[in-house]
């Protein structure tokens, strides 16, 4: 079976479990490194960022006690999740990513052409996700502590990322809850952050008809997970000599990663923006040029025959039979 189909099924299952799992008493905890929003009432497990940001909003001295241990526990659980599944959280589990993929399917159906960033633009905005990650740690710390000679930030800044996250606005809608669509006029920071959330939600829909996984490029969760790229269990290997640099991989990549095509020497190509969707392996025509490994065991390998089969598609069984006939 086609890996992309398997991925779609896995995404669908995890979407259902994470968005509606609560209805069936499923609870996978609230320490997950993925955008299964905690504001979704019936969630079957949620994003760790809400709790994490609240935990950070206390004086440094308190971290030497219970609070510190609780924080370490959260980080421990998240790290473990991140090491075992690394970027598969983005490409295979994230419900928010799944909805973006569905919108891309809709775009293809009505045959709207995709647009690509200029290489320069793409490179320039790569740091945004790390800045967001830093801010979602620093701002809560600034609430509990006077840092850098500034006074303590007001409580209106609490859980700043959640306030601006488009998943908070959009995902509850799938639970029939429209109450997160608002702009908080009660305070300056609140107004700023919730307006950002509304704008990003709008972008979520509009960009889906122009690009693939637009918001993922700026996701601080991706930045966080990318810290585990080198030690994660899943790796993406490349055999440089077999690579013809045909560019299929980078053209098919929803994250517009160029390294996958350009690199001939780097062995592990799970780069910072990689979401392990494995599209690159799908379209690689060279035997064993690309390979996904889990704990160093080959899971999915690029093959010429596989490529031909996928390219011919189901509409032309002729090619498939031609390939298999002579196997």
């Amino acid at each position, binding site marked *: 079976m086609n890996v992309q189909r398997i991925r779609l099924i896995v995404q669908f299952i995890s979407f259902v479990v994470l968005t509606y799992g609560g209805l069936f008493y499923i609870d996978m905890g609230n320490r997950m490194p993925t955008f299964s929003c905690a504001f979704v009432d019936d969630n079957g497990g949620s994003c760790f960022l809400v709790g994490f940001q609240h935990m950070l909003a206390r004086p440094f001295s308190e971290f030497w006690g219970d609070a510190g241990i609780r924080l370490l526990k959260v980080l421990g659980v998240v790290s473990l999740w991140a090491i075992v599944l690394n970027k598969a959280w983005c490409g295979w589990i994230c419900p928010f990513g799944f909805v973006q993929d569905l919108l891309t399917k809709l775009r*293809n159906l009505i*045959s*709207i*052409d*995709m647009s690509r960033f*200029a*290489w320069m633009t793409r490179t320039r905005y790569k740091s945004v996700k790390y800045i967001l990650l830093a801010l979602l740690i620093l701002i809560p710390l600034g609430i509990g502590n006077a840092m850098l000679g500034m006074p303590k930030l007001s409580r209106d800044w609490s859980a700043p990322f959640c306030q601006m996250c488009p998943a908070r606005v959009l995902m509850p809608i799938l639970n029939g809850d429209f109450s997160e669509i608002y702009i908080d006029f009660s305070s300056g920071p609140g107004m700023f952050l919730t307006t950002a959330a509304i704008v990003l939600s709008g972008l979520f829909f509009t960009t889906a008809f122009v690009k693939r996984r637009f918001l993922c490029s700026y996701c601080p969760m991706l930045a966080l997970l990318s810290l585990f790229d080198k030690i994660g269990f899943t790796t993406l290997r490349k055999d*440089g*000599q*077999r*690579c*013809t*640099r*045909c*560019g*299929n991989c980078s*053209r*098919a990549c929803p994250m517009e990663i160029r390294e996958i*095509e*350009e690199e*001939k020497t780097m062995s592990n190509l799970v780069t910072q923006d990689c979401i392990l969707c494995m599209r690159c392996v799908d*379209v690689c*025509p060279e035997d064993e040029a690309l390979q996904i490994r889990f704990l160093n065991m080959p899971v999915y390998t690029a093959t*010429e025959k596989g*490529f*031909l089969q996928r*390219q*011919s598609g189901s509409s*032309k069984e*002729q*090619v498939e039979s*031609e*390939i298999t006939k*002579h196997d």
Partner: protein
Amino acid sequence: MTEQTKKLTKRERLANKVKVNLAMSVREIMDQINDQGNRPENMAYFDRIFETFEHGGEGTVQPRKGEKIIGTYCLFVPEELIYATGARPVRLCSGAYESVEIGEDYLPEGACPMVKSEIGFSALPVLSFFHQCEMLVMPASCDWKVKMAEILSEFAPVHMMDMPRVKEEESSRAFWLEEVKRFIKRLEKVTGVRITRRRLKQSIQMIQRAQVEFHRFHRIRKATPPVITGRDALEVMNAYFYDHVEDWTAAVSKLNDELEERIRNQVQVARVGAARIMLTGSPMVFPNWKVPTIIEEMDGVLVADEFCTSNRYLNDMVAVDEGTMSDMVHAIADRYLLPSTCPIFSNSVDRKDRLLQLIDDYQVEGVIYHILKGCHPYDVETKIIEKLMEGKGVPMLKIETDYSPQDVEQLRTRIEAFQETLKGRRG
């Protein structure tokens, strides 16, 4: 008036002379090919195509009903697009010695024999399919081709496709994509057919099917001992120039079936212990069978090649991603530019890796690097490849030659010595 008739007859006399000479040398080569013995039966289909060269190219290209012929001069011309308009691409790269002299009236002495030969056939009515083309498509790949377009425009409308040389860069890719789009517009105008999403998808799949058979054929060539000679393999690939892709696919499919049968029955075409040679360098087009013939007559076997007229021609495939019109056009542009191992590009990394991979896959013992006199891109790269082979520990023989039969004996001595050395190395 009398002046003109006189000129015309002179031209015709010349054409007839070339025709007769060509027929003679083609006959000779076909005889040599048939001397190989133990040839696959299904090679007859391909032999027929080349035998037509004896009769002025009558029937070399058999256009289907209403099919317009578009002549192409390089492997950079996206044939998917031509088929999508219902026209038929015919690659006019030529290997005939007989027309070189005519080409010398148009090009300097130092030009490579291939362009001279091509211009010769355009200038004189020798091979009919050269004169049936609705349009000629010329990618500005090497310097000779750049000027050739202007010369050829005397004989037929020429569409020039500009080529970037630094294919890694964003600007080059964008530029090439625009060139491909410009080609689409010109094609649509010439053929009067609009390339729709459906038509393009069909033609992409049609060529993909040919490539499936091509890749199968090349997997079969990995068999040791080989079940098909290098000359036959070159012939099969060369036939793609003139044949309709569907007919070619069907014929290669039959041939592949036969060859697989041969593997099972352990039929061999070369002596066990023959030196395993890879041939690469300047393009090699029928009837320029000089070098492969010598290699295989001197107890060598041509197990692999890396030519734009053979292995490189169909190796890379269009990979459709989203399937929208712009995605398919983008995929086509990428397929022709990015994986190309042509030495006109600034970076030879891809070519080097490809050669190393072929050496590994086909257990190559020695490489013969073929340079046509005047073929600068390959000439420039010789040192780089020499160094690469030294590092790999594979001996390499560089031969510089042209289409003339004068140096056959000298080449024979050198190639024989080289192949003996290879066998001596086995220890």
